């Protein structure tokens, strides 16, 4: 079978590129052993039962004890990701990780293909059509609120860490009268901290600081301390003008890790370091991470867009590594990785990969990869799913009572 025919997504070598890779469940059942062997899961013992066993040993905290992490990676097209040419940009996601995953090659955004609405649609299970710039909250309850209200979870159990400048803290809770901010998530925008530090250094004539890593750390911490932290657009533990000391320590650790890691220094890198520190310090049950280096595409650099994809591919693998190494997460966590939408097709009147507002398959038809506890067997599900299907699925894993929404639970996930 041609793996790059228009309605087929090329499957990385970790999964067999045969009809079995695209199959439907009954066929997969018949060939499960071959499938798993090809996917590397029967090598050195079966990893899946091991993961399950570990999951059972972990103490349950709230609800089902299941933890969910949703990683949204901005707008990327199939052409640059799960296509024959694009696979090279995803060496981690299509490498060993892929053999363990549940992969939906057709995951559709059928709503507004702008950041705030796309992300809030994923989080609420309803297509949101609020202000694109985050002036208004989603109109129906987010997964954070459902989880916190239903299971009486604390605020520290729900976090969003986002690079994207188009978001505001309104993303953390809806305007629904029965839910709302008192059940909302902590929301932090690490890149905003970086921007503020740069702006302050520029304003105060200290730009030399940006050439020295130790001084960059000072600048970032100064930005954190010197300003009312709400200037960063964050919303953490409902603090009015001071960061909670627990959070401050977490952020400072993240900044130190980011500045001194001798690696890349993009906004997504800082978001990763913050995410990892939050996982280590608070171990939230519901964590959403939004990366956005790929959005360099808006400025027309294709090379930087591709670099953003490779960065997020690596950072997703590092988040999964943290899940596997962190006892609070190991064996009881499901990680979803998906783009918010694609990008516009080459030759479109909206300037192709620069933007994401065309009503085209290139913009709407994306993919999703799931790893972890709720994935009881790796498979590729060709059936198209929708972004709004994620919220009810995750709510089910967390043990929340069903709430009416446009999305439906995906049957391939098992708590």
């Amino acid at each position, binding site marked *: 079978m041609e793996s790059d025919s228009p309605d087929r997504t090329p499957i990385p070598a970790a999964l067999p590129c045969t009809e079995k890779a695209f199959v439907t469940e009954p066929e997969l059942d018949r060939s499960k052993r071959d499938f798993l062997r090809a996917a590397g899961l029967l090598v050195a013992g079966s990893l899946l039962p091991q993961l399950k066993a570990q999951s059972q040993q972990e103490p349950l905290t709230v609800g089902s004890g299941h933890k969910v992490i949703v990683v949204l990676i901005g707008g990327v097209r199939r052409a640059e990701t799960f296509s024959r040419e694009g696979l090279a940009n995803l060496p981690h996601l299509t490498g060993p990780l892929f053999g363990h995953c549940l992969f939906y090659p057709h995951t559709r955004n059928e709503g507004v293909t702008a950041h705030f609405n796309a992300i809030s649609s994923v989080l609420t299970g309803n297509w949101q059509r609020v*202000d694109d710039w985050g002036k208004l909250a989603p109109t129906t309850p987010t997964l954070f609120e459902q989880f916190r209200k239903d299971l009486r979870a604390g605020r520290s159990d729900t976090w969003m860490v986002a690079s994207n400048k188009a978001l505001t803290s309104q993303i953390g809770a809806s305007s629904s009268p029965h839910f709302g901010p008192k059940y909302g998530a902590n929301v932090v925008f690490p*890149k905003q901290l970086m921007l503020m530090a740069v702006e302050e250094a520029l304003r105060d004539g200290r*730009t030399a600081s940006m*050439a020295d890593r130790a001084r960059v750390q000072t600048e970032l911490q100064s930005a954190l301390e010197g300003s009312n932290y709400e200037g960063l657009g964050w919303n953490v533990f409902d603090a009015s003008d001071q960061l909670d000391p627990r959070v401050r320590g977490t952020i400072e650790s993240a900044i130190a890790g980011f500045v001194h890691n001798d690696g890349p220094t993009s*906004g997504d890198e800082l978001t990763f370091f913050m995410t990892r520190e939050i996982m280590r310090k608070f171990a939230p049950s519901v964590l959403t991470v939004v990366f956005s280096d790929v*959005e360099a595409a808006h*400025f027309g650099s294709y090379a930087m867009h*591709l670099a953003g994809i490779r960065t997020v591919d690596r950072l997703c693998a590092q988040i999964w590594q943290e899940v596997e190494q962190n006892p609070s997460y190991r064996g009881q966590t499901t990680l979803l990785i998906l783009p918010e939408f694609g990008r516009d097709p*080459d*030759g479109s009147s909206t300037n192709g990969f620069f933007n994401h507002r065309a009503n085209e398959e290139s913009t709407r038809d994306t993919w999703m990869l799931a790893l972890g506890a709720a994935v009881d067997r790796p498979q590729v599900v060709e059936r198209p799913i929708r972004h709004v299907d994620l919220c009810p699925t995750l709510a089910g894993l967390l043990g929340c009572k069903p709430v009416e929404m446009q999305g439906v639970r995906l049957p391939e996930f098992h708590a």
Partner: protein
Amino acid sequence: MEMNLPGDLPPQLQQAIGSGLLQRLPVTFQPFVHQQLSEWDFLFPNERRSVQRLLLYVNSLPPTQFNALFAPLLQLEDKMGVRTWQFSTTEQTILNASLLARSPYYQQWRQAVQNVFDASDAYALKTGASVARRRLVLLNIPAYLPVDKATAWTRWQGIGFVQPLDLSAAHASGTLAFLLFGEKAASPSLLQAAQQPDDHSPAQAWIIDAGDNLIRAALQDQAAAHSTSTPTLLGYKRLDTYRQNFSNEMNTMRRDLVDADSVYDRLRKVDVRPWCPPEASAPSIREFLRALYLSGNGAVIFGNSFVEWGASEALRRARPSLLTAQFDLRSKPKPFTGVAVFDNPDKVNPLPSVDDPQGSALDAQMLSLYIWLAALRFTEYQHDTVCICMAESIAEAYIVAPPQFSLQRNPRPLSIDTLRQQLKTWLA
């Protein structure tokens, strides 16, 4: 709403507007029309013809046909609840765009608007208001951008052919400059060949440069009076002052939409004349640049994006006979400024800039294709246009041409002199 009409509107158009045409248009159609009319003095000849054609066409329709043409749009406006919106009918605003884009009917609305324009274009074709002529799109990826020979043209998907080039004759100013201005003084240049006898507007020929070599060569050529043609010249680096002032203003924008619109409003009115180099001082060009910078797409950030978006907008708005574009080198993002802060990284971080030839080459490869794809969206470029994209580092050109173009695939390297002659013959 009463509006002040420019004095030099054609009488037919003044008459149509005077008869209340604008008030009969659907609410969401009005901002575009009002804005075009209010900016009449800054429109290119093609745009003036297009607006005039559209308005005279709809004004000529009997009431039943007029109603039928706009009925789908009006129905959609009802469903969208446009009358309850805070929607400007006098200009296109960010708030307008945001309100439209988040409506569930947005895509249908776009199609309905497009249908009106399509009907107008079809009418123009039928009545012979649209004239066919031969055109040329000439693109250059300079030698210092290393293009991979094996993959250089794969994105063009076989729509043309690869032609080896002999670049030995091109001098220091580069192949494209030599192609455009290397002609012996006695014979007409490629630019002159592109000049249409019935249209001497500078908008007929555009030279857009991500650096400044090509523009300087063009200015030298003009100064030496080798050429009587006056193309539109846009050089990213020569526009530093304009761009940086604009960029500073734009970066003061807050997320608040009202504020964004007020900043845009201010940017639409600010006097940009002191910021313009001489070659960009004509009202239509300085306003073209203002609109280009306001519409984003990286035009204030990267020279190569400026070239692509500038060329795309020039094709859309001016429909030139000759469009030439040259890409350039950009720097790598600096540490801790990177993707977060693009605005003048040299000001933010004192570390020396580091060139990114590989990344720049990849950008240029994609963006050169985008310029050609932008041209292909318009009827004028679909049949009688030759596109040549040169990659100097591999001494190759990719040529997309209609069958009547005399140059065919030849395994022997083609000299720039020969290429120039072929192109002049084509345009003549």
